[in-house]
């Protein structure tokens, strides 16, 4: 416990808080702001959505986040905007558009949708309805079937001139804020408050403290965090930069930062779309790459991607550092080579060979915001009909995120053909040991893996698709 000072809507609050208390409880119980709802307490419904603003380095960011997974220890010096704050000056154009589209049935999900759409207007480069739909990927509604929400989004996105909207965001968040204030999307007091936000206090490292990235895994697994060390405030763990032959990612970098970083998308253009299938926008704004790795879930999406990219980790404990190839980091089911007190400081991705491409495949029960049944990432270099590089990693098929070394080797052995694609699928099936669980039977996962191997190869070489189909459908029947 310590005194924290932060802002909620227009109000400065100083409170003694337990660092692991969830912000949703802080809002609802301590501050009686019950417009923020709780539907699941696990980041899966979006009823608890808030806009969370804070200084990060030189910039101020406001993101939609799930307050049920936000530990109060993170909010010192930050600004929380709830539905009450957004509505303080009357009905906003977001609310008006949604009301007119008839999106309210039981109304329980409604505040969350308003917050998420406001967050979209704050952060989106473009006023585009498909981007707006993606921004609502973390919000569930059981009543409406979303069609009315779709209509509300269309209406909202045609309220203003698209070029003007884009322009308003060019010179940073504050300019966009002013633009939105002028259009009554945000209350007038937001920009000045945002500007005045202090740097968050540095986090103090004590012996035995628990490293906390985005807490999106930790707070699902446990009710409280004892002696947390918030990594988002450790400068050495931040940032994405080129460093020699590597792309160096901080251990505190979150998934959305990674997804949108120009350094990343320049090297791997497919990645920003592929990562839309990972969690939801508000979760991605919190969840870190390092957390995904340390978690060591066999279906960790980022674990696979980073494995296929041939990444290594720089680990730090006190003043001693070591570097480890990622595949050696995963020891056994949810067991990693990490000493007590050791941190993932940087993740190093070797710069890819010119012309190589990254593909990511994920099949889950639901297309969005779901954990994979099987997922697969592949770094492939095709030259004149032949693979010169292939590095495939698969999830959900072994106790750890797995490099498919035999399959990868096989793919280099002969020119790409339907026969080779099939053989690669079969080889992959032979490399893995899936189990029956809630994400599918072992047999299903085996089949799926073979097909996802084909999936990445067909995306690399679409002309093979009809040939492979003929092979598969006609072989047995003759």
């Amino acid at each position, binding site marked *: 416990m310590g005194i924290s000072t932060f802002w909620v809507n227009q109000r400065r609050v100083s409170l003694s808080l337990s660092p692991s208390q969830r912000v949703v409880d802080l809002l609802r119980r301590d501050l*009686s702001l*019950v*417009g923020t*709802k709780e*539907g*699941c*307490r*696990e980041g899966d*419904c979006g*009823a608890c959505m808030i806009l969370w603003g804070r200084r990060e380095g030189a910039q101020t960011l406001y993101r939609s986040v799930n307050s049920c997974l936000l530990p109060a220890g993170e909010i010192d010096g930050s600004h929380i905007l*709830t*539905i009450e704050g957004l*509505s303080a000056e009357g*009905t906003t154009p977001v609310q008006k558009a949604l*009301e007119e589209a*008839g*999106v*309210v*049935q*039981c*109304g*329980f*999900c*409604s*505040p969350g949708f*308003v917050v998420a759409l406001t967050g979209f207007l704050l952060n989106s480069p473009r006023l585009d309805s498909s981007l707006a739909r993606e921004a609502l990927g973390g*919000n*569930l509604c*059981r*009543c*409406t*079937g*979303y*069609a*009315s*929400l*779709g209509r509300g989004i269309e209406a909202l996105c045609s309220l203003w001139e698209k070029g003007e909207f884009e322009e308003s965001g060019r010179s940073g968040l504050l300019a966009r804020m002013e633009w939105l204030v002028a259009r009554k999307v945000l209350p007038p007091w937001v920009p000045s408050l945002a500007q005045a936000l202090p740097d968050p206090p540095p986090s103090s490292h004590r012996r035995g403290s628990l490293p906390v990235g985005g807490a999106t895994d930790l707070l699902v697994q446990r009710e409280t965090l004892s002696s947390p060390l918030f990594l988002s405030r450790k400068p050495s763990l931040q940032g994405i930069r080129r460093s020699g032959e590597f792309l160096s990612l901080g251990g505190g970098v979150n998934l959305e930062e990674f997804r949108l970083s120009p350094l990343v998308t320049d090297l791997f253009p497919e990645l920003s779309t592929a990562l839309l299938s990972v969690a939801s926008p508000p979760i991605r704004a919190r969840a870190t790459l390092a957390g995904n790795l340390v978690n060591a879930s066999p279906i960790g999406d980022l674990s696979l991607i980073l494995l296929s990219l041939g990444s290594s980790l720089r680990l730090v404990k006190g003043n001693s550092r070591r570097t480890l190839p990622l595949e050696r980091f995963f020891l056994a089911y949810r067991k990693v080579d990490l000493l007590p007190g050791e941190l993932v400081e940087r993740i190093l991705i070797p710069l890819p060979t010119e012309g190589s491409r990254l593909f990511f*495949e994920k*099949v*889950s*029960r*639901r*297309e969005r*915001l*779901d954990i994979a*049944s099987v997922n697969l990432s592949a770094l492939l270099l095709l030259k004149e009909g032949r693979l010169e590089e292939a590095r495939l990693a698969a999830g959900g098929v072994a106790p750890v995120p797995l490099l498919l070394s035999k399959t990868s080797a096989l793919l280099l052995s002969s020119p790409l053909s339907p026969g080779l694609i099939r053989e690669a699928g079969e080889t992959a099936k032979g490399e893995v040991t899936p189990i029956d669980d*809630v994400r599918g039977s072992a047999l*299903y996962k085996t*089949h*799926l893996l073979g*097909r*996802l191997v084909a*999936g990445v190869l*067909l995306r690399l070489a679409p002309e093979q*698709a009809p040939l*492979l189909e003929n092979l*598969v*459908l006609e072989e*047995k*029947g003759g």
Partner: protein
Amino acid sequence: MDKKFSLAALKGEPLYVVDFPLPEGTLFGAVLPPPVPCGELLSIDPSAALALEGVKAVFTAKDIPGENQVNDLAPDEPFLAERRILHPGHPLALVVAESEEIARRALPLIVVEALGERPVFDPREAALKGRLHAPPEVLSWGEPDKAWEDSFWKIQGRADSGDQEHLYMETQSALALPLPYGGVKVFSSTQSPGGTQKTVARILGLPMHLVTVEAFRLGGGFGGKETNANSWAALAALGARLLNRPLRLSLNRREDMAFTGKRHPYSTDYSLGLDREGRILSYRVLFHQDGGAAMDLSLSILSRTLLHATGAYRVPNGRATGLSCRTDHVPRTAFRGFGAPQAFFAIESALFQAAETMKVPLEELKERNLLREGDTLPYGKTLGKETLPASWKKAKALFRWEETEARIEEYNRSASWSRKGAALMPIHFGIAFTYTPLNQASALVNVYTDGSVSVSTGAVEMGQGVSVKISRAVAETLGIPPSRIRMESTDTSRIANSSPTAASTGADLNGEAARRAALLLKERLLAVAAELLGASPEELLFRRGLLERGGKKTTWSWERVVKEAYQKRVHLSALVHYATPAIWFDGKRERGEPFSYYVSGTALVEVTLDTLRGTFRTDRFQVVHDVGSTPAPEVDRGQIEGAFLQGLGWLTLEESRVTPQGKMITDTLTTYKVPDFSSCPGVVDVRFLEEEEGGVRGLLGSKATGEPPFLYGIAGYQALWKAINAWGRPQPFQGIAPLTNERLLNLLVQREEGKP
């Protein structure tokens, strides 16, 4: 939707039960589930829990002052487990503490001794063991066996549909306040304040007039808060009464998903006989309903299944047999559609299989057998004016069915690793409670001296828009703007003996009662006005809050007339009771007129299947649906769109999983998936059937929309099957649901390997 409410909701202003400001000294409850799925309860030792600081009490069955029974009809569901643990969600004890956290922390400290038994989770196994909630229910008409013998095409098969979690966004919750003279007031998230009141009274051993239950708008219900809300309200009331302190009990998502009942899975055997041209001659069907460990509403639900056994088709001979099987699941309960979706799923599966066998297009077969005016339904009702054929015809034309079929055929010839399918699906759904006595309602309309109006009925608003429909009906009747009307909460002390808000009847019953109350008030007020103006009442009416005489405005406003009426000591409140006329049902003979009218419509759904990954997308959902002359088209549109996606979720996505030991492994939103924005069809196109004359209807000529469109999900299911069938070598149809991605891939692989 009600604009005022909608805006308030978008600002986060409405209060759901857990949002209410708490009275000083409120305590919190948590519920102890059993350590075994079912079996014998030997002992409960709460001493360690009681020793935890902040814990006030632990209550078990022996603390119940009244009757330890949840069920109103037959005593088969002890409220807190006493000697037998009935099912994995059966509450054993209530912990009361100073905070929710402490109460939950105390739960594992309670030591329970129990002897577990191997649970029976399969309804067919239960049936073989003779474990039925009631003797089989049989509805038989014509000469089913002879007609079967005479049939040219004989189709036999099986259809299995799964359960479904309601997943209302607001979990079950109740806040109970002790009242003087031993009474209790409960704010409950219940669809049935009357039922909740009765249950609380029974368990506390109180007369009903000492128990008041009040419900504000719910954060979703879908049937899951009809009987299912009662236990939590009763637990809160029990603790509040015994400790004489306010008590709030709210399930968290995991508890809600694990402890509360879901939709009934059905496993169904059918034989469908058709003549050479594809006219249905005989349909014999045996439903194994998985009722769970206690009967709850299973028997009523089974009745609706039987009444809807023939779907939207003409079936001259048939026999529908329903077995309500007593498995060891948490008792299954009401869920949008109330047994009809399972019935439709079965006959639609039979037709799908028939079309495949006969090698005729499915839609041709459907069209040939479509219900029309003059047809007789299995329970002897002859259909009057019928809108189904018109909706079918319009849907085919408007949505270009023939072109769709041709385009898809072409697509499936040329696409690689992708196939499309589309299906047309007719629905025909009877509106009324199948248990006739429930078809009554009352409404209390108060006009205050400033002219503002409040309306109380037995209907609970949970997002279905019943309050908008009622307030518009009252506004129209009184001739005043809707803004002058406030829809009140649903409170048992204002409206007694109300039926649950269910069976899509909420607006029809309560709205009609309210309309009649408004009519009475209007007559009284016009009489006053007539006297003042020296006119006859027939010359007068209110329009937009102004009194008109002979079609011309007067200087009298609604408010002024109300004030005068008060001065003249005219009664400005009206309480009116309404019972749906002309419905009856003879349960012994299974004959009668159980519904006040039918809702019909036809949907087209098109899907694209990724045959490599075994995933699909819904390209479009288009529908022509009969809503009568609706007072709230935007409400109906929302109901249709929402119900469809929920229906599609039931058949393609949602699946609960319980281990053989009875542990629910899909008790979170991480493991149990409901449709999200990515599941929404690319095109959603809802058209209302504009028929000049639609026969009997409900409130102001409208038709109920809550449940029927749920059935359209089946169109998506059939479209998906057609896409599967366009892949690889033909394999027989299997009526299995949900068609999850896992099932899809397995079916695709079978079609590649050429073996079942």
